[in-house]
């Protein structure tokens, strides 16, 4: 059976990380109506067995921007995020209905190759999870899957670590264990590891919640730089963080059936200063959640 692959730009291994860090033009602001949509959720439902964790979420995620998903515990934020690169497939009896379109192609279609999908949609997890390997091998892990070897791999590792603002800290100890790095460095290494396969979208599941304030700040700075090249979706409990880093914010809440639903979405400034919905206002002002 032929496997339907997603439409994608052709990329040569070895030169994939050589794109300039700063895009020539700044991406237009989210919500301005003219921004191309990178990922579109269409009436997305996610079920774990009979339990519906996410209900009827429709949401556009614009290209080259940071979209923050906020909401109280149990509102389905992580589940929604994990559906985008089909990590929900790993949970027995989990299934998704509706559509998640990546450049117009539905990633929930059974014919989609999840391996290729996950190369295009990378993920950074809540707790830093470097592999118990050297710093170099952590970054090289992904590119090696796609056959990058030798000198071009060395160059790719260096440019990726530079892109993740980690190169200067680790360039003299590339062969040492990644486990010896600090938590913040480990998380930036995990971001570098995700970047090394040149994804188009990076999903971040509370990437700074296990880090101290200084390391958090570095991650946030990095996100602002990275959105020039990647479309970033971040789940966060931290409303200040959402306000600081995101262009667009989506507020999820837990319904009476305990399913997460989308209350409101819009430009971050609007959500935080002038939300349409009373629930959003209460949540962003800290009255519940």
């Amino acid at each position, binding site marked *: 059976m032929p496997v339907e692959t997603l439409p994608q730009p052709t990329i040569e291994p070895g030169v994939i990380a050589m794109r300039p860090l700063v895009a020539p033009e700044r991406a237009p602001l989210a919500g301005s109506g003219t921004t191309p949509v990178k990922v579109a959720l269409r009436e997305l439902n996610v079920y774990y067995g009979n339990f519906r964790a996410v209900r009827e979420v429709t949401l556009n995620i614009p290209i080259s921007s940071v979209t923050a998903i906020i909401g109280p515990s149990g509102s389905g934020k992580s589940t929604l995020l994990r559906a985008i*690169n089909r*990590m929900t497939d*790993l949970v*027995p009896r989990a299934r998704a209905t509706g559509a998640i379109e990546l450049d117009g192609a539905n990633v929930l279609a059974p014919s989609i190759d*999840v*391996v*290729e*999908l*996950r*190369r295009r949609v*990378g*993920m950074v*997890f809540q*707790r830093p*999870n*470097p*592999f*118990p*390997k*050297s710093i170099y091998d952590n970054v090289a*892990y*992904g590119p090696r*899957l796609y056959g990058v070897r030798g000198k071009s791999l060395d160059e790719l590792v260096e440019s990726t670590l530079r892109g993740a603002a980690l190169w200067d800290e680790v360039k003299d100890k590339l062969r040492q*264990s*990644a*486990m*010896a790095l600090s938590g913040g460095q480990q998380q930036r290494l*995990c971001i570098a*590891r*995700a970047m090394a*396969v040149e994804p188009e979208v990076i999903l971040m599941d509370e990437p700074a919640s296990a880090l101290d304030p200084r390391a958090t700040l570095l991650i946030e700075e990095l996100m602002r730089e990275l959105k020039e090249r990647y479309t970033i979706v971040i789940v966060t409990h931290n409303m200040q963080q959402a306000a600081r880093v995101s262009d667009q914010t989506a507020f999820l809440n837990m319904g009476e059936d305990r399913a997460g639903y989308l209350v409101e979405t819009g430009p971050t400034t609007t959500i935080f200063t002038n939300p349409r919905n009373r629930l959003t206002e209460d949540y962003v002002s800290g009255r519940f959640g």
Partner: protein
Amino acid sequence: MSVAAFVAGKSARRIARRRFTNRVMLGLCGAAALLAVAPLIWIIGYVIIQGAPAINLEFLTALPTPVGVDGGGIANAIVGSFMVVGLGALIAAPFGLLGGMYAAARPDSRLGVAIRFATDTLAGVPSIVMGIFAYTIVVLPQGHFSAFSGGVVLAFIMLPILVRTTEEMLKLVPSTLREGSLALGAAEWRTSLRVLVPAAINGIVTGVMLAVARAAGEAAPMLFTAFGNPFMNTDYNESVATLPHTIFTYAISPYPDWRAKAWATALVLIALVLTLNVSARLLTSWRARRLGTLRP
């Protein structure tokens, strides 16, 4: 009434009694722990005292002599033990490790459940039964005893230990590592091989060592398979002497010289297993220090 006031009221005697109970129980647990360690020290000490006097270079390098002739050694049994244990490990390791990987990757699948049940049952089968089984399926069709049949029976004995320790050790690897690899687009096999197994390698090697140690000490199945051989043999088609079988033969003999040799052979067996174990641990802990592998 506050807790503090309550404590002050009920007071000193009760607190003293609690402290006393605590000390008594701690002492009991400590004594039990000591008792658990004691047999090991006792056995090893006794074997050393009994066996050490008979050990010299000749004992390790010469062949056995007939009864009444002084000297002689167990070189044939040392070589034979390496042959059967080595063959057993060679047969069992691929099945054990791959089976363990499957059981860890698909714990709730039908096959995963079946693997766990089958290996637990197999681990409970007495080794002498395994010996008779190998006798029936290998020795009888071949028409003669052989080192090969000894290797086969030891593979059966090692298999469940290998499967279960591999599975358990892989399950100890945090699932976040697995997710991290899968999220990069790595397939499951690649994830197991490149991330999970390296992270669990210490435990897996420990499992292999446990299996080898267990197999190296088996005497009963050797009666039906390797059979024993007073001469040096390196042919897998012929019968060979093994250390546990030699211990058995010497120990039940009426000759004091042979009984002394039984103790010495026991010491050699323990020393070999211990050396193997310690060197494997040193190797993996060196790797762990270098790469920060998880330690079980």
